[in-house]
Each structure stands twice: as structure tokens, then as C-alpha cells.
């Protein structure tokens, strides 16, 4: 369905990926196949429990597939040794819904921890990083608009600011891919817009491929070139965004086949403005 970027080589290739939990009782991903070319901005939408996080976590080796293949940046992630996996992860940034920054550390130190993959030994304290790394981290903090908070403890920041620190840490990694798992799910709508802008703008500037799962479809539309919809672990929508996006089709993703299903009643339809 995606046609406009077909000429570039795929940077992420997922083939028939199936993942079950609890000895097969929960089928989180069901025969998912997709390929993402370098530089593409992909947004993944889907109901809660549809498998978005599970999919993203396969792409940096935090989950191992039950069956199927995952190739990222030319490496086969299935059965990759921990050393190779670590090396690969340096090139893959991950932005978490819950930020996953170290609250007790200063913003600068959190950002600098993004460079750990490039460094040899362990680091403790701002002064254990070289001056040039400190400068680099300060620049990244400036990019997300927090240059003035370098030495503030990160857990004293607001949620949106903490997520921006996490984004700066990811940028510090100099990754080729950024995986973002509902990066703004715990933020209010206005802050969400700012954070999404920071994330996508920086990735466009640095030519980073982005796969981002989201609930608020409208937030993605400004930056995304492609939208993938998941339902019950299956890909049910895969479309380029620059063509006129059919709201109906996007909304379909959020509907369950079984109208009596609990999730359908629990879940509020996402806002789709065009």
C-alpha cells in the first residue's frame, strides 16, 4: 500500500512476526509483516492491547519473537548475542511512555547517558564524562528547549519536560532509528503537541527513521508519512499519509469486530481532525 518510498532500502524488516505470552494464551502479535525504508516517519495506531508496544519492543530486542523474523539495520535480531544486541541498540533510540529517565540524576547526566554505548567504562557523576560530551549533551538539551535546566534534578521537572530530556538522551545516542512507544500518552494535549514536534523535528533534521505508536492520530498527521493500524495483533491498516487520508478507515482500526467486546465500550474514539 505504501508506494512513495519504495525506492529506498528497508531499514526495518519484519516478516511473519508472531508473539504469544503466557504459553500461548495471549497472542499479542499475529503474523505481522512490514518493512520500513530509511528516513520514513511511521505512526502505529491501535486500541489498547492491540500489540503496539510489543511490536516496537521487538525492534530493539527487548522482546524475542515466538516465530517470524526481525531484521533491523541489516542485522537479524532473532537469537542475536547480547554483545551484538548492545552494539545494535546504540543505533536504535527508544522513547518510552513512562520516560524511563533516572530521576535522581541531573538532566545533563541523563542526556549524557545516551552516549554510554560509545564509551568504554561505567560513569558516575557529571564530571566523569569528558568536556566535549558535556558540551554535546548541553546542545541536545538546548535543542529540546531545556538548556537552562542542565543541572536540575530530572524528577523535579514536569512530565513534558522529562520526556524532552528522554528525547535529548535518545538524540545523544546519534541513532539511525528512533522507536517511540506512546511518547505523549501521559501528557496533556497541548504539551503533547510540543513534545511530538520536538521529537519529529529533531529526527527529520538528523535524518532519523521514526516508528512511533500513538493514540492521538491528529498529533501524528503533521509529521508522519505512513500510518499502520494494528488490531488484535494484526496489521489492519497500512497507508501513506500524504494521500488524502480516509478518516473512516482510520476509525475502523479502533472498532472491534465484536461490538459487545469490552474494549470497544471502554475505549473512547480518538480525535481525528483533518
Amino acid at each position, binding site marked *: 500500500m505504501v508506494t512513495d518510498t519504495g525506492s529506498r532500502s528497508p531499514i526495518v524488516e519484519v516478516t511473519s512476526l508472531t508473539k504469544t505470552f503466557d504459553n500461548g494464551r495471549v497472542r499479542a502479535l499475529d503474523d505481522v509483516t512490514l518493512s520500513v525504508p530509511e528516513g520514513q516517519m511511521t505512526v502505529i495506531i491501535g486500541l489498547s492491547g492491540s500489540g503496539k508496544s510489543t511490536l516496537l519492543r521487538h525492534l*530493539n530486542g*527487548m522482546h524475542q519473537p515466538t516465530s517470524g523474523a526481525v531484521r533491523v539495520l541489516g542485522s537479524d535480531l532473532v537469537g542475536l548475542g547480547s554483545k551484538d544486541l*548492545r*552494539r*545494535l*541498540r*546504540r*543505533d*536504535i*533510540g*527508544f522513547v*518510552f511512555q*513512562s*520516560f*524511563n*529517565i*533516572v*530521576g*535522581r*540524576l*541531573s538532566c*545533563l*547526566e541523563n542526556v549524557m*547517558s*545516551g*552516549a*554510554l*554505548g560509545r*564509551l568504554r*567504562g*561505567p*560513569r*558516575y557523576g*557529571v*564530571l566523569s564524562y569528558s*568536556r566535549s560530551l*558535556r*558540551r554535546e549533551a*548541553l546542545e541536545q538539551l*538546548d535543542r529540546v528547549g531545556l*538548556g*537552562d*535546566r*542542565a*543541572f*536540575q*534534578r530530572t*524528577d*523535579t521537572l514536569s512530565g513534558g519536560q522529562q520526556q524532552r530530556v*528522554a528525547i535529548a*538522551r*535518545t538524540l545523544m*545516542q546519534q541513532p539511525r532509528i528512533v522507536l517511540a512507544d506512546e511518547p505523549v500518552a501521559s501528557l496533556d494535549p497541548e504539551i503533547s503537541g510540543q513534545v511530538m514536534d520536538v521529537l519529529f523535528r529533531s529526527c527529520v533534521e538528523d535524518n532519523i527513521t521514526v516508528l512511533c505508536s500513538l493514540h492521538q492520530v491528529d498529533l501524528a498527521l503533521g509529521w508522519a508519512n505512513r500510518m499502520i493500524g494494528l488490531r488484535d495483533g494484526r496489521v489492519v491498516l497500512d497507508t501513506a499519509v500524504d494521500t488524502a487520508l480516509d478518516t473512516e478507515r482510520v476509525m475502523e482500526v479502533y472498532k472491534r469486530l465484536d461490538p459487545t467486546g469490552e474494549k470497544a465500550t471502554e475505549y473512547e474514539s480518538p480525535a481525528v481532525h483533518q
Partner: protein
Amino acid sequence: MTIIHEPLEKKDVRGSDQPTPHQGWSVNRIALWGIVISFMLVSIWSLIDIGVNPLTLFFERDDIGNLLQRMWPPTITELSSVWDATLDTFFMAFVGTFLGFLLAVPLGFLAATNMTRFAPLRAIARGVIVFTRAIPDLVFALIFVRVYSIGVLPGVLAIGLHSIGMLGKLFADSIEQIQTGPREGVQATGARRSQDIATGVLPQIVPSFIAITLYRLDINFRSSTLLGLVGAGGIGLQIRAYQGGLRYPELLGVTLLIIALIVLVEIVSTSVRATILGHDRTKVGLLTRLRGGPPASAFARSDSPPAGTPTNSASLRPPWTRERVTMYLFGLVTLVMLVLSFTMSDMSLGDMITGLPEIPQVLWRLVPTQFDWWQSQFADLLIETVLMGFAATFLALIFAVPTGFLAARNVAPARWVYVTARTFILGVRALPDLIVAVIFVAALGLGPKPGVLALAIGLFGFATKLFADAIEEVQEGPRDGIRATGASRLQESFSGVLPQVMPSLVGNSLYLLDVSIRGSTVLGIVGGGGIGFPLLQGAKLLKWDLLGGLLILIFLIVYTIELLAGWVRRRII
């Protein structure tokens, strides 16, 4: 071995999410009540067997009064040697705690489920923790004095070795409680394991590690005043000399000095702990509270530059915030103290470095190879030890429960009552139980009776504090409800407060029993009855088999009680 012991095992974390078993007579509930009732029965029987009752102290007032008369007035002679011994005592505690810290950190990591995947390794680490915790430092000192000869070194090693138990356990607990999110975030950047630990784990545990270690320093200072009783250096040597020479005024003088020092060290360590951890994380002691609230935490949120104040963007060095200054000062003081320890006391770093690796060998020698060390009287003495533990706990509880209510800010009838009660228990807690035992043995003669009384006094101070703290934590709602019905103050305490504190009361009591039995194992060293006396003899005569055999038995008893107490506690709290 002192009464003041480790905090309850992270009581609220594991316990509270279990449903309170108040409905129905489940097997658990029957077992629970069975244990509580047998606790009562055994306690009463042991009181009868040993011949003590809640009024014994009153009945024995003549003998004790006589002794106190002979002790009066308290005197301190040989000032320079008392001063040296005091320094030795403090440095012994300091270096011992430091040593324990160094050994406990790796052990804590090895024992934590989220750090060590390999279960057998974890089990070994847990085993070391359990063993070093169960053997009183006084017993370690007793053994080491025979190996390294009289002096500060065996004291340091004993404190270090015994400390690893509690430190390792609390360290492992606090490692297991870290948030996994930050670690996941660091790992996702491709960090190595060592980097993940330094960046994702260390920042989360450093403050609690420091606080735990300071707390242990406080405990260790109390025990280091006693180690001299078996020849391991410090002020206890003086006590032993005065006791042996019947120099009672000096005995009292040094005892009062020790109490003052213990209070002082507690105040300092509590304040430092509060500064480092913030008062929301640690129990702030009475004195801090009386002084008008705890000092602000060095890690408190308010210490960061206020929002909106731009830090100089060009600056690549962290500013000297209060937090940073505090940490640097803390490091500096620690370093200075270590240097002083090896220059001002008769402790030598060389001796320590050569002595430390011999410990496993010494302990190995203790493993009994045959059974001809066993004498049938040991069975009686072991039983006596356990009964002494029960008796002391029971006596302490009878007085501690009502006093606890007086010492709780929220239920005390008047502020002056609260302040008086708190000050009183602070003083009682500063009395090392073994010194009280020395005095009681001198007044009442050898045997379990003076031992139990001394132990009970120590436990009383400890228990009252635990209870008062628990009462201060009750919710106000139910009390207000009772008060609104027009109930009297006493009714309010009974109906609104007691039900709320009941679980922690029972839990704390079982914990006290655990502490009490540990304590009763060493009373015999000063003539207070129980298994301590043959231990002392075994060490004096270098009967390693006997010593080791008894240690194993003590370990088994203490560990069984601990498991039982822990099991019951988890079911009620």
C-alpha cells in the same frame, strides 16, 4: 550484642498487600493463633521457671539499692586511659562499620533477585547474610580475641563480620526495590552491564545505602562499648577491669559516660541521616523533632535551581548546590575519620590486611569434626537461653505497651507527658544491656535472673520506641469517629487506636522475641545465665569443636525463631 537492632524487615512493602486474614478460621489463622497463644504460655512458664515476675525489680530493691550505694558517687579515674579507650571504642565501631559496608555491598548485589540471575549464587549470598546476622558480634569477638589476641583488631573484625548480615540484607532489599524503568531506559541506549549499574542503578540506591550504613554505625557504636568485656578493646575493657576489681564508683562513672556518648552518637547519626535522606524517607528521632522539625533533605526537590532560573548555559560544571556540597563533605569526613582511626587508635592497617584473609580459616576451624564436645548440660542451658528470651520479651511487653501510648505524640494525654516519656526511653535505650547485666549480676548474684532483668530493660526501651512510632502512624479518621460519639480519652485509645496498631504490635512483639533470644545467648558471658558461659569457657580453653558446635546450635535456634516470627508477621501486618 546490644538490644538496639536492625529495623523491621521492610515491613510495609511485602506485608501490606496481603489480605488481612480476618474472615473465617483458615488453617493459617488457626496456626497463627496457635503460635500467639503458645508464645504466651511459654512466656509465663519461663517466668515461673526462672523465678522472675514484673515486680522482681521492686522486690529486689534492697540488693540493688545496696549496690547503687556502693557505686555512689560515680567517679572517673585514670582519665587518659579512659579517653584512649573511648577513642578506641569509636574508631573500632567506625572501621568495623566501614569494613562491613565494603563486604556487604557486593553481597547485597549477589543476593538481589534483579541483579543475580543465578539462583545458587543468590542462595549462597543469602546464607552468608543469615549466618553473620545470627551470630552476635560479641561471640565473633570472643573467637577473634583468641586468634588475634586482645586489642582493637578482633573488635573491628567482629563488628565488620556481624554487620554484613544486616547491611547485606537491607542493601539487597533496597536494590530489589529500585524502579526498573530507568534501567530499561539506560539499557535501551546500548549500555554495557557495568554502565547500566553505574547509571541506572547506583543513583537510585546511594542515598539509602548511606542511610542504612549510618544507622548501622549507630548500632555498632553501642556494641563496641561492650566488646571489651571479652577483651576486644575499647571502653568495655575498663568495665571488665572495674567489675573484676569491685571498683564500683568507677564502674558507674564509665557507664554514665557510655550512655552520654551513645546518646550523642545517635543524635549525630540521626541528623546526618535525615540530611542525606530527607525526612520523608527516614524516621527522624525525637531530638530532631523537639528541635523544631528535621533539617531539609540534601536531596529535596527544593535544592535544585528554582524553575525558570536559567543556569549559565555555557557552564559545563555542575554548580555547588547544597546536595553536592553535602555529599563532598560527607565523603571528606569519612576519609578523615578513616585516617584518624589508624593514627589515633592502636589499630594498624597492616594487621587488618593480614588478619582479614585468615577469617575463613578461623571459621573453618570451628566446624566440629566429632561429637565428644557435647555435654548433656548444654541441652539444659540452650533451653534456658530460649526461656530467658521469652521471659525478657514478656516482661518488656508488659511495661512497653502502656508506655508506648504515653510516648506517642498523637495519644499522649499531654505534651509534657510525651516529652518526658520519649526522653526517658531515649535514656533507657542508651543503656547497653550487658552493662546492666554486669551491674545486676553484681547485685543479685550469678544466674538467669539478673540476665533476664537486664535484657528486659533493654528490650523495654526498644519496644516502647517501636510501639510509640507505630501508634503515631495511625489514621486519624477512625479516632475522630469514636471521639464524635462522646467517648472518653481512654475509650478512644482502646477503640480507635488499639485495633489499628494491633497488627504491628503483634508483629513487633515477635520481632522483639527474635532480638531477645539473640541477646540471651551472650548474657552468660557476664554471668547472666544461659549458653553464653560455656561459650566463654570454650573460647578460653580453645576448644574449637565445642565452640563451633554450640554456635551451630545457636544459629539453628535463632534462625528457626526468626523464620517463625517472620512467617507470623507477614500474615498479620
